[in-house]
């Protein structure tokens, strides 16, 4: 009986040999097999490149996504964060190039999950509470202000400017939020491990190879992402969120990672298309790849040492 059940399962799952004919094989597979049979290795590799390797801009996206140290640090830190970073980056890349409903929803969902990860893995500190040292500094600053008043209608009106600037909760919150946001507005944070303005008490780490910085700038300028409101609004949300949550995180502001990937990918794609139009030789592309490879090695060696 057991054998009967197995036979039945096989017949349902596996296609019967007699039902498979030449017409049902995918033409591309057929072509590759034909080339292999004829032992035309070079042609086979070329066909492989054309058939199996994804389109150039997706290839660029994949290289940018996986050739930076940030994504690998995320992998070793937390696999789920790595997975969602990859997914969010993919969806971000798709909504900028092909903003369909499913990609937009996928992006938003992954972005929300990533925000939760950012929130839960960051060491958050109060936006308005002051520790002992900060209180001492606050008192010192308050003492430095001169008395500020206006004499009018026979009355002296005192203006508590010192308190507005140094004492009010709102002032402290605003200055801290702005400070947190400003840390993430620094190119050097992403391309030079925050060198030369390394922060005290923060373990700065290498993220992207610095050679990608010009492409990042080109990517921002090329602005096809401006067609996607979701992308732009979520970028603003990511910055604001980092301002509130703070930047004390082993992985840094990884919520901004997908946006950086998209900008860099767009920049490289734009540059590649431009250079191809100028009939840039393959030799130049190979040289560019070699330089990129050396810079990656350099970045890895800085990260290790």
């Amino acid at each position, binding site marked *: 009986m057991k054998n009967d059940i197995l036979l039945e399962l096989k017949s349902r799952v596996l296609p019967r040999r007699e039902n498979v004919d030449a017409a049902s094989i995918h033409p591309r597979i057929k072509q590759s097999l034909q080339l292999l049979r004829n032992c035309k290795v070079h042609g086979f590799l070329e066909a492989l490149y054309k058939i199996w390797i994804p389109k150039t801009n997706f290839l660029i996206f994949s290289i940018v996504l996986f050739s930076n140290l940030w994504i690998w640090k995320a992998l070793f830190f937390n696999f789920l964060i790595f997975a969602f970073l990859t997914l969010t980056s993919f969806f971000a890349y798709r909504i900028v190039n092909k903003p369909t409903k499913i990609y937009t929803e996928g992006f938003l969902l992954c972005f929300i999950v990533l925000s939760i990860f950012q929130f839960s893995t960051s060491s958050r500190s109060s936006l308005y509470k002051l520790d002992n040292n900060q209180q001492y500094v606050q008192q*010192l*600053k308050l003492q*430095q*202000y*001169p008395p500020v008043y206006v004499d009018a209608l026979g009355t002296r009106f005192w203006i508590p*400017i010192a308190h507005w*600037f140094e004492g009010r909760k709102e002032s402290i919150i605003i200055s801290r939020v*702005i*400070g947190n946001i*400003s*840390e993430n*507005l*620094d*190119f*050097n944070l992403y*391309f*030079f491990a925050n*060198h*030369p*303005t390394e922060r005290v008490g923060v373990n700065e780490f290498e993220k992207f190879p*610095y050679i990608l*910085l010009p492409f990042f*700038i080109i990517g*921002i*300028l090329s602005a096809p992402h401006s067609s996607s409101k979701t992308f732009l609004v979520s970028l603003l949300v990511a910055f604001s969120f980092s301002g509130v949550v703070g930047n004390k995180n082993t992985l840094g502001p990884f919520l901004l990672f997908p946006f950086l990937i998209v900008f860099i990918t767009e920049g490289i794609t734009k540059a590649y298309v431009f250079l191809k139009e100028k009939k840039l030789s393959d030799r130049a592309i190979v040289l560019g790849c070699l330089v990129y490879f*050396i*810079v990656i*090695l*350099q970045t890895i*060696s*800085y990260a*290790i*040492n």
Partner: protein
Amino acid sequence: MQLIKNNFILVLGLSFILLLGTFLRFYKLDAIPSGFYVDEAVTGYNAYSILQTGRDEYGQPFPIAFRFFGSYSPPFYTYATALAVKFLDLNVASVRFVSALSGVLSIVIIFLFLKSLNILRTKTGILLGTLLFSLSPWHILYSRAGYESNLAFFIFALGILLFWEGLKNPLFIPASLSILSLATYGDHTQRFLIPLFFLASLLFFRNWFFKKQNVKYTAIGLFLSFLIQIPNLSIALTPAFLTKSSLFYSDAILDQAQKFVAIIPFPIAIIFSFIREFMAQYMNYFSPQSLFFLSDPDPQRSLPGLAAFYPWMSILYLVGAFLLLKNLKAKYEYRFLFILAIIAPIPAALGKDPFSTQRALPLLLPLIAIMAIGLDRLILKVKTLWLPSFMLLVCFSLLQLWRSYFVFLPQERAQAWSYGFEELAEKIQEHREYFFLIDQSRIKPAYIELAFFLKYPPEKIQRENEVIKNSYYQNINFETYHRLGNIETRNINWERDIYKEQILVGDELAISENQIKEHFLEYVFEIRDPLNRVVFKAYRTNPEKKCKVYKGNSICNERSS
């Protein structure tokens, strides 16, 4: 919305901005910053020396570069200050006067530059761009500092304005090239920047420069520039010319190259390390965080709690930079501004300091233009709301400036600005019968501060420094030991100095409680800063009592014999 309908309002607006700028640059110039920085003192004293004797403190007649502490600073500011000292006497205000005046004149240059660039669509944009400049903390800080940076910036800005005008009317080119050449006598940064700018201009505008009708003006301009450079060329091969080369980060490059020399050949590792280090330093000068949120790490070159610009200006900067880069191909003016922006921070980016507001001061010119572009575009987009928002932000910025510059800086940064020497000079006058020994272990060169405040005769200092005059541009080593009448500046020698009748002066750490007890020192006076922190402490020695206790001492025996 077009607020400015005619030129009368433009001139009125400019007058108001000039008035505000003048007030911010001249108000309490002698008192804020409190203290008198050593670079100001050395400039002021050498200006005084030139005025009195025609020679600097080392006896060199009309130097091409002033030796100072071995920095060989370009001379323009010192000679200009000599004029100020002639009319205003030797004091803090006269030394800072030329810088403040350059600051006010720079406002006019910026206005003319923004107008001339013709990239702003509204006249309001020109006026408000000028207002941004006049309020910028970066420029106000250096307008009120009595050394060369701001004058050099003014000359540079004037040269750039004439250069831009020259691209429209070649008659201006000889004047512009001459003034830019003159700027190399302004400060060290210009020595590197002007040749870079010349090269970049000749490269990018070569078609224009070598056009038939323009070539003669180019030739005249280059010839005049060369003539102006003859004094510089005469010392170009001496150690005095490139004293700032020690600021280059060669050690950092070597350290970084060592990290991956196992994988890559050493020469290639060096090249890539240099590229990375340079790019990191260079990009830092365009980073919104460095420009709008973080102060310069050097406390003497920054304002407490304020960056180079106000935080809200970051929006103008980002919008302006975006528009500039987008329109590079379309507009000639944008290309000129872009070239200026990319060249300006190069000299500063070759130095170790993470964000040197002093060395990157020329960058202020293109950055203001970029922010003006951003502001101009926002005026057109936002229409009705922009004016109240802008006025609110300007008022808030003035409050921030008041808080940072006029409240905190005189108190928190007093010691960074070498506070205390004027008071010390007064104390020395009060106790003129005593010999003073000023400990030099931790403080900046004290002799020049005291020479300034005591108006010490330059001829006497020149006599003591005669040796240096013989190899003026070769001898770059600076000695901290100096003798000014009854004052000596060097480190305290605890084995000998306590046996001589004198007053020992040092900072809080120079003389400990144990040393006071051990050597029977008597308290004379102390000088405190505005935050009540000790700046100087003075103790009189007691050789008689010391020798009574330590009878076998050879110095005591010498004294008794």
